[in-house]
């Protein structure tokens, strides 16, 4: 690869090559950035603005200052929704990550079955969240669904969607059913990139399977774990379709997670200013978690997992 290049022109001397390497003008990126700004960033700013207003969708928004925010911090329903969101996210992450990791690493190894399994595992991703929620709603219908027969085998009450804990677990499960294969594939890809040579060295040193896993596989997958976790966490913070279709936030308010609370407040009660406040809170939570994770894992500095090799 590098045998063309004279010694002087190495990566470090990039600056000297500025004019001659035909760098693209920054203006090329402007349309993309502008489009994204208009349809994602500007609405975000407007949402923040709206959170300081009262708006019913028919008339103009009226400025009300911190009213919505004071209400938010004193609202037990918001507290419950935030708590449920965090709970759901934690459950989803705790359920999906270890399983996806193990399966992914395992699947990276075996040869013949791997292609076959990948093919099947991919199918849930092809279905829309809507379709999957509808499918499971039919399956879990306490009066007419498959759950009537399977439930007793597994020792659970067929009315899973109607019980508080059951409903939340169902949402987590359905989300996992859809996305676990996705994360398995991500880990599989990450695991395949781990150099064989590390494992060989460890075997020579007498390390067993378990030690190899904890001392080689996991550290090498650091970035993969971060990517997958961020996607998973942001994803589960925003499970909306599933809740709308399967439980409508119930029973009572036991699955009213933040996005659903926002939808209900905005598009059923038509208290759009408050809904905007809830939405802003949601973004703050999601972004903070992402930033924290990126910081903790050193992803931002883009260090290679192969430093020192």
């Amino acid at each position, binding site marked *: 690869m590098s045998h063309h290049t004279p010694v002087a022109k190495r990566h470090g001397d990039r600056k000297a090559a500025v004019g001659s390497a035909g760098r693209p003008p920054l203006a090329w990126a*402007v349309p993309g950035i*502008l489009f994204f700004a*208009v349809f994602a960033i500007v609405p975000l700013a407007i949402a923040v603005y709206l959170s300081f207003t009262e708006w019913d*969708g028919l008339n103009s928004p009226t400025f009300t200052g911190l009213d919505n925010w004071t209400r938010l911090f004193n609202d037990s329903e918001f507290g419950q929704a935030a708590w449920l969101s965090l709970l759901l996210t934690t459950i989803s992450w705790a359920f999906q990550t270890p399983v996806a990791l193990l399966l992914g690493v395992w699947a990276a190894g075996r040869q013949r079955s791997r292609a076959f399994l990948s093919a099947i595992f991919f199918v849930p991703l092809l279905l829309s969240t809507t379709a999957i929620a509808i499918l499971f709603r039919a399956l879990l219908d306490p*009066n007419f669904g498959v759950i009537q027969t399977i439930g007793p085998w597994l020792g659970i009450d067929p009315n899973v969607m*109607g019980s508080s804990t059951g409903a939340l677990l169902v949402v987590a499960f359905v989300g996992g059913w859809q996305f676990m294969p996705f994360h398995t594939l991500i880990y599989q890809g990450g695991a395949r990139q781990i150099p064989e040579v590390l494992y060989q060295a460890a075997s020579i040193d007498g390390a067993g399977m378990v030690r190899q896993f904890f001392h080689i596989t996991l550290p090498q997958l650091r970035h993969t774990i971060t990517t997958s976790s961020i996607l998973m966490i942001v994803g589960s913070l925003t499970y909306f379709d599933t809740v709308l279709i399967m439980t409508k936030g119930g*029973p009572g308010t036991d699955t009213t997670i933040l996005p659903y609370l926002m939808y209900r407040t905005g598009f059923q009660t038509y208290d759009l200013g408050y809904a905007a406040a809830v939405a802003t809170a949601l973004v703050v939570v999601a972004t903070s978690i992402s930033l924290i994770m990126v910081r903790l894992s050193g992803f931002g500095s883009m260090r290679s997992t192969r430093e020192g090799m």
Partner: protein
Amino acid sequence: MRSGIFTQGTRTTRWAAAGAAMVMAGVLAGCGSGSSGGDSGTITAYVYGDDAVKVQQAAVETFNKTSKVKVKLVPVPGVDYVNKLRSAMGSPNAPDVFYNWGGGSIKPYVDSEDLVDLTSTVKNDATLKDGFIPSIMTAGSLDGKIYGVPMRGMQPVMLFYNKALFAEHEIEPPKTWEDLQAAIRTFKAAGITPFALGGAEKWPELMWMEYLLDRIGGPEVFRKIQDGDTDGWGHPAVLKTARTVKELIDQGAFGKNFNSVDYGSGAAPTLLSKGKAAMHLMGSWEYSTQLGKAPEFAKKDLGWTTFPTVAGGVGDPANIVGNPTNYWSVNARTEHKDTAIAFLKTMASKTYAQALVDNGDVPTTSNAASMLSGSPNPQFATDQYEMVQKAPSFTLSWDQALEAQYATPLLTEISKLFAGKTTPEQFVEAMKAAK
């Protein structure tokens, strides 16, 4: 060279920022709803999308044959109707004509001056003025002004039951609270859910609250609340209602699964038609729903009666709750007001009333009584008509009588009560505190 790039970068940034700011300013500058949609030559009419839509569809087709400006009927799935209507009304694509329940359901549009005041139109037009039962016309008005023309049948809430099951267990449909308790016991012993309940949608649960409150405390209790007095929720009859509901649930009157059972998708009606449940408290449209989904059952085994009395209650047993009817209202921003009103007039015609009758409904037209013998089920139609005629009071469904900002919390609190998440006392407190 480096500075060249830097300047270029800054210029680009400036443009981007200016562009975004302009968009933002433009968007914020003109908040509020725009004019109503509909291309030249068509008006759109939003209607609640259920089995009864076919009657309105036929009326539209007939109207379009002779009208230059066509009507386009847009059925919106019931479960979403209120939201979709609201969203559309707040956008430039608002419908010209739309279905509503009168009362609180049109209050926001009246307040934002989005509705055409039809009072003078009705007064000056014989078809409209004399075409409908007066009390029904009043139910569709607000502050003494008429905003809607009736377009569906009357919809009192009745107690439907499975005649076959009752015959099999040799009991009569309940008239008193003791009868009700006996029925519950009998059916539970036989492994049948006494009452089908579409709890997932929340408003079927509301019907129980409405009747119980009326039977226990009389219609004035809710009327005060409807008129704006949220302390009215503190009336002792409300607490007793909530407690009675809790008793019923604890007894197993609704079975165990009602929280995840729908109405709109047909789950609750199917429980009744398949004999998994013995009774179903529902609006009179349940008849046409059953006719559409389980015609054999509807024709043979569907029975109906009034809601039983409650021991010690002061409400007149002849009182009813439900929807007097549904109305068409006209969007003030429509470009074809005359066409809209012409369309509305067809609602008073004999053909339209006959079509409603044929579908199993009881129209609210003045000539309704004479047409009932032509109904697919004359007994049902006559019973319904008499129920409404004789009722000293007809309370509008609470979630339509109150505005959306109260209705949604109301439904949420009721669903929490039914789910056992809150106690009756907490329910009362929550309702009193609703903004």
